[in-house]
């Protein structure tokens, strides 16, 4: 069974500085995978590389079995890779409806626009209430819902969420994750990045822990929940050699520091 998304020995950076040293991970159809890690671990860089905003230095990004490393960002949207970016990045001067409209800009998404509008407004009734409101005037939680909704409008096969809980109140985080869980129940494959470990492991099937641009650990949510490795990765202690093996049988890469 080929994975929907597979990163193989991915190495990416900005300018001279390398951020992802060597990242390999995979995500199967219908799976929800979270990417955990402290600040600067390379989580956002991973999503940027998958969505095509950053070109990999080396390694492979395979989507549905095809190497997409050389496909530009706007074409990856057509393939069905949609990102809700870190910090939301909604268009503040656009109304909620216009933001969503822009989410379905690609040719494939345009044909299913009405259907996706129904779906997104059904998922986030709050957005339906605020259709004509300027996105910049909404609360952080509402903007996050809008960012997720905008990504959904692109008819994703793989939805990527970059820190959907960033800067939100705990109660709102629950709302957002409830929506993520609902989306997940419909069978969409989701890769999401999170610092909020507890919230993330509640929803995800599996997780990877990033530390210093490498996969420090991988496993099912239950395994990671009890793992000291996760704590170590967050507290900055040198990741130990203990690797909790992933549920799908690929070994965790361990940094040899």
């Amino acid at each position, binding site marked *: 069974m080929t994975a929907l998304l597979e990163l193989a020995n991915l190495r990416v950076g900005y300018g001279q500085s390398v951020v992802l040293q060597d990242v390999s991970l995979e995500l199967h159809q219908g799976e929800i995978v979270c990417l955990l890690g402290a600040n600067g671990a390379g989580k956002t860089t991973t999503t940027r590389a998958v969505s095509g905003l950053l070109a990999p230095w080396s390694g492979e990004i395979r989507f549905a079995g095809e190497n997409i490393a050389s496909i530009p960002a706007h074409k990856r*949207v057509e393939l069905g890779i949609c990102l809700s970016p870190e910090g939301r990045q909604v268009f503040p001067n656009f109304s909620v409806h216009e933001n969503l409209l822009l989410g379905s800009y690609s040719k494939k998404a345009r044909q299913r626009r*009405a259907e996706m509008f129904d779906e997104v407004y059904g998922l986030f009734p709050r957005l339906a209430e605020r259709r004509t409101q300027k996105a910049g005037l909404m609360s952080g939680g509402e903007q996050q819902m809008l960012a997720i909704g905008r990504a959904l409008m692109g008819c994703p096969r793989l939805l990527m969420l970059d820190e959907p809980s960033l800067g939100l109140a705990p109660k709102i985080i629950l709302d957002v994750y409830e929506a993520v869980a609902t989306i997940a129940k419909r069978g969409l494959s989701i890769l999401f990045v999170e610092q909020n470990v507890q919230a993330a492991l509640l929803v995800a099937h599996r997780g990877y822990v990033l530390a210093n641009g490498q996969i420090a650990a991988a496993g099912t949510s239950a395994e990671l929940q009890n793992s000291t490795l996760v704590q170590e990765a967050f507290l900055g202690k040198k990741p130990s050699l203990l690797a909790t093996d992933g549920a799908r049988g690929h070994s965790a890469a361990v940094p040899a520091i």
Partner: protein
Amino acid sequence: MSTRSLAIPVWAVCALVLLLVPAYGSPTFVDLAFRTASLIVLAISWNLMASAGLISLGHSAFFGLGGYVGILSANLLGAPFWLSLVGAVIAGTLLGSGLALITGRMRGIYFAITTLAASEGLRVIAVMLPDLTGGAKGAYLKAATFPGVLAINLAMSLVAVAACIIAWMVSRSRFHYAFRAMRANEAASQMLGIFPLKYRTAIMALSGGMASLVGGVEVWHGGYLDPAVAFDLHITITSQIAPILGGIYTLSGPILGAIATVFLGDATRIALGHLQGASLLVFGLVLVFCVLYLPQGIQGGLLRMLGKRPSEAAAEPKLSPTVATGAAKP
């Protein structure tokens, strides 16, 4: 809405006046209409680029190039009026798309400076090629066939009306959203499947073609061109003063702004022309006050007078009914 339904007849009458003045107006009005039409096109052209986040400081590059293509094709190849205009449009389109490809992902001040440099570069080239352009002495139009003053004035009016229609069509199309998204956040627009370079090239080609066409018509009108006239910074500046004064990023803003700029320039010159420099000083002061007290331009001020909230949405199409009904039920 009454104002919306009123807008189309009002604009249609304006267009008709602009098209009739060259034939029936007094010489003063014919001249006024020509200059207004010319500035309307330049302002729309500048505003199109600005609405995609591309602030041009080099509109005189397009204008001058169009002028030179116009005069050289007539003098050297014996091209008639219409054909030389086609040449001017093609040259402007090529320059616009070329600049788009060269500037790549440059934004803001970097983009603006590059366009300024392009304009200056073309001016220097025009000076350095005296055999072709007449150098700093300039060149006179020696056309084999002269279309007549009426045809030239009418052409300018037609171009202005066409530019308005094109701008309106762009604002109704879905590309409009892409341009606005690019202006707000180019990286975010890319994540949504918009390829910025494609839209940037398209809008600069369109905008460049328009501005070059003005240069082409102007050279037939004036009959003379030298590098300082062709690549005058004044053209760059008025083509952005007009949309800013009228209402940047809006549909009617550049038109209203162009009319106001021409009117204001003439009024101050007639009233204060006998005092050297005073007319320009007053012109400048009025502009400063307009920017201070009409931050959304004349268009925004008018909308406020009519009791509406000025916003970008005012210039935008309503969503299609299928989308609207689809969205209504949560």
